[in-house]
């Protein structure tokens, strides 16, 4: 006689770093992956023991709402200026661990200039970039990461690359920059990828703790509401459409960055007009 396996007891836990009070500001939809990413960040920071040194920099939007749900020090910025403020905070408190969670618009549209310059300067901060292919909190408008052909509320006939251009690839752009220590793209839509994403976040923080350079973790995330798909179909969507456009993998992982320059060059360039004071 076949014995029925005893029902497994599933224990739901909340990471210690999760800020329950602030959850009121971060209502994510069912099937959204941002809650998973939030959990990963909490777990990694707890494991690294950096809660007391961490300062989160948050903007506006679904992805930005991760930071207020993590119980560390945090500062608020306008939409798209996260990397600017994070750079200044890190420079003023070098012993802190500065992290920011940003979305498609903040990193690649309104903040794209800051993204390029922050990576080029090699600011020692960690950025978690949630790529869900659209502006979610404002209701599903086209973003720099929206797939060509995909409908959004501001591309109702589908995104025509001849009009609105092609998707931007943050992880690849960051990997080109000399100041970047770590650039990776992952997902959390399967168990294996979930583990990889966690390792990636841990490595990204480690690069900052080792004072090497800028670290970026791009994570593809589902947006059931704006994709108009149920949560399970979202997983297929990521496999079928997102990953071919945004390939997964490590694009850069270095243990040191060469900051040296030829001293010959310091003799060239503009003459300093110094007037003696006193």
């Amino acid at each position, binding site marked *: 006689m076949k014995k029925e396996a005893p029902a497994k007891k599933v224990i739901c836990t909340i990471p210690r770093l999760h800020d329950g009070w*602030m959850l009121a500001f971060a209502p994510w939809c069912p099937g959204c992956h941002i809650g998973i990413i939030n959990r990963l960040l909490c777990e990694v920071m707890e494991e690294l023991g950096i*809660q*007391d*040194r*961490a*300062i989160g*920099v948050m903007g506006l939007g679904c992805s930005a709402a991760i930071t*207020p749900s993590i119980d*560390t*020090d*945090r*500062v*608020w*910025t*306008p939409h798209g*200026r996260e990397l*600017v*403020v*994070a*750079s*200044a*905070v890190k*420079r*003023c*408190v070098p*012993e*802190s*661990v500065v992290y920011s969670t940003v979305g498609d618009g903040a990193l690649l549209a309104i903040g794209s*200039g*800051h993204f*390029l*310059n922050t990576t080029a300067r090699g600011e020692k901060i960690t950025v978690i970039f949630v790529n869900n292919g659209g502006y979610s909190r404002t209701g599903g408008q086209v973003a720099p990461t929206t797939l060509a052909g995909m409908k959004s509320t501001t591309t109702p006939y589908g995104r025509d690359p001849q009009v609105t251009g092609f998707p931007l690839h943050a992880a690849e752009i960051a990997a080109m920059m000399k100041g970047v220590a770590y650039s990776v793209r992952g997902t959390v839509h399967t168990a294996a990828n979930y583990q990889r994403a966690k390792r990636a976040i841990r490595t990204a923080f480690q690069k900052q703790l080792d004072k090497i350079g800028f670290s970026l973790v791009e994570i593809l995330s589902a947006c059931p509401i704006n994709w108009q798909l149920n949560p399970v179909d979202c997983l297929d969507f990521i496999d079928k459409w997102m990953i071919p456009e945004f390939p997964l993998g490590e694009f850069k992982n270095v243990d040191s960055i060469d900051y040296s320059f030829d001293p010959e060059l310091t003799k060239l360039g503009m003459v*300093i*007009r*110094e*007037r003696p*004071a*006193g």
Partner: protein
Amino acid sequence: MAKTETVLISGMEAIGWGAIHADCQAYFGYPITPQSEIPEFMSREMPKLGRIFLQTECELAASGMVYGAALTGVRAMTSTSGPGFSLMQEFISFMTSFECPAVMVNVVRGGPGTGGITAAQTDYHQATKGGGHGGYRCIVLAPASVQECFDLTQLAFHLADKYRIVTIVLTEAAVGQSLEPVELRTLDFGPLPEKDWAVRGRFQREGKKQTMPLSKIWISYVGFHQEQIEKYQRIKDSEIRYRTYQVEDARLLLVAYGYVARMAQEAVSMARAQGLKVGLLRPITLWPFPSEAIKEAASRIGKVLVVEDSSGLMVEDVESAVQGQVPVYLLGCWGRNVSTAGGIIYAERILEEVKSLS
């Protein structure tokens, strides 16, 4: 920096020295004529003191970094000119909502648009009426000499910290690029509240949570605005600054600030030499505006001439102060010696206007 020394420097170097004497720990800026001398000066002096200098990718980033640095509790500043100041408004508004103290310097150039690159006073409204969105005020200090550039920059840091407000030093190329002897000394304006709101990581607060995770505006919208109104009233009560020159027996009151006030003072001396009784009131704080002082002097003297190098901006505040009781005349940018962007209003032209009104 305790010792006092007198040096011959420009207004913009004086602003830099003022910031250094006020213990400004971080400067962020972006080049724009006519204020590039300030980032050049700071790039030279700040690293010597182990302080932060960074030229950012744009003015918006500069003001953003000032916000980030100021939130960690250090004194931070930026400087720019007209078009760059427009870009900085986003963060000035944001800093206001978080009551984050910072110092911004605007070396005004003629506008609107790219305009000219020489002295002008066209950014008066943008500085004094809250240039960004949301309806707020910043303290605005207008130096009229190189020594004042140095002193008022130090005062700006003090007032910013005292009231947790953005303080703007509003000057222009004429004062900024003049060379004058300046006495360098650190000014003491008294004690300041502790920055217990500073965000530096919990390890620096013995594990205690930060006090300012949110803007007060999100907790109580009306409460935030009421607090701001009360704060503005406190500032109006105690921080109004102005200078008067020969107003006691005057029959005509000149009102001017910045470099134009220097010209107006010269015009007063020239008029007095010709027997014309003219006085000058020079606002140093453009916000809070010395309305009461102007009202009192104007009602006694009976006639006001506002001189400003713009289309007529401060004149609105003067008209509002005198409440229609006395006539208010204006000599604006049409009083320049030449009609190009390179012109300025000379004392002789002000004297002409004084004579026509006497």
